């Protein structure tokens, strides 16, 4: 399935573009995107990870790549065999970026059209929260194969996840399914604690008539590894969270293969 637009050579070799999105911030999009990217790689795929969060890029820290000298660096940056791009790689951006909306669109367009992504099975895009400039630009510039919506189980998070779902419907971008992050915690006593309630992701998927892709448990090592610059799934391959990500990646691959992503016909003028 060809998702890279022929008009855009930067994405011509990219077979699937997956947007990891949510309505609400803080549900773990970046963590899910980083671990999903590695999990897809563990399934034998060639993967890139693009950070579309212009105001708050997380990919550099989660992947352990500091700012680089843009004069001599080759973008995308390669680490763990992943191709990475983030505004956080630019030294000036680490101080914080003060930009109006249209500039966000320009940066996202730059990442999608000026970076040589090369030959990739999957380009995972870590979206900022909300339904704004970055999301619109992405869905206009690239032929996105599908979006996965990350949510946490409680209703407040679901409220905004519904908005994200509706946005992708309006932009005719297929929603591959819902991922429930921070689903539960298994204590030393082996008991399952549902810290943020239970079943919200499943309910949302059922209501929106999209697939439920899986749930990822809370594991303190997820945050620890993210801060240390190596996604948890690489370091603790046997943990329940890592297994959940591997299953998730399988589900995403199946869903992407089945997604109907016919490009719009060219206009004959």
């Amino acid at each position, binding site marked *: 399935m060809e998702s890279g*637009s022929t*008009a855009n050579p930067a994405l011509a070799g990219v077979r699937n573009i997956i947007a990891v999105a949510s309505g609400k911030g803080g549900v773990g999009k970046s963590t899910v995107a980083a671990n999903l990217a590695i999990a897809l790689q563990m399934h034998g795929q060639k993967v890139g990870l693009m950070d579309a969060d212009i105001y708050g890029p997380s990919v550099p820290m989660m992947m352990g790549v500091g700012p680089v000298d843009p004069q001599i660096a080759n973008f995308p940056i390669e680490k763990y065999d992943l191709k990475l791009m983030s505004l956080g790689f630019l030294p000036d951006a680490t101080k914080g970026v003060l930009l109006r909306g249209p500039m966000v669109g320009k940066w996202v367009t730059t990442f999608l059209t000026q970076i040589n992504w090369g030959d990739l099975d999957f380009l995972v895009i870590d979206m900022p929260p909300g339904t704004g400039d970055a999301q619109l630009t992405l*869905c*206009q*510039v*690239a*032929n*996105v194969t599908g979006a996965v919506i990350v949510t946490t189980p409680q209703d407040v998070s679901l409220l905004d996840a519904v908005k994200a779902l509706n946005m992708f*419907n*309006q*932009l*005719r*971008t297929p929603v591959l399914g819902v991922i429930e992050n921070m689903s539960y915690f298994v204590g030393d006593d082996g008991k399952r604690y549902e810290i943020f309630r239970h079943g919200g992701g499943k309910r949302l998927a059922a209501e929106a008539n999209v697939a439920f892709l899986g749930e990822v448990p809370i594991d303190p090592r997820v945050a620890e590894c993210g801060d240390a610059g190596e996604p948890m799934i690489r370091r603790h391959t046997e943990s329940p969270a890592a297994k959940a990500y591997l299953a998730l990646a399988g589900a995403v691959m199946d869903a992407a293969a089945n997604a109907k*992503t*016919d*490009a*719009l*016909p*060219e*206009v*004959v*003028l």
Partner: protein
Amino acid sequence: MADGVTLKPLSLKRDGDGLTIHWADGVVSHLPFRLLRKQCPCATCNEERQKPPDPFRIITDKDILAASPQPKQMIPRGHYAYQIVWNDGHDTGIYTLEYLRKLGEPA
């Protein structure tokens, strides 16, 4: 009206002074370029349309060109819309499929 998710254009072609769209459900829309330009959905044009006409308006070269609007390019935008680049340089209108379909229906 067909809903946005199932709406699918099969072909879009210039036909004289307009655009003919063949839709997957068999419907054929003919959209004169003049209508497309007049109903440009961009923010600037939306605002212009809401203003009362200015009797002291000076007609510029651009307006004269726009009187017989010709699209120079029509670029697919993702899975949901086309961007039209007009001969007078105006290019900010993103026409969603729903909008194109609606414009082709009798008022």
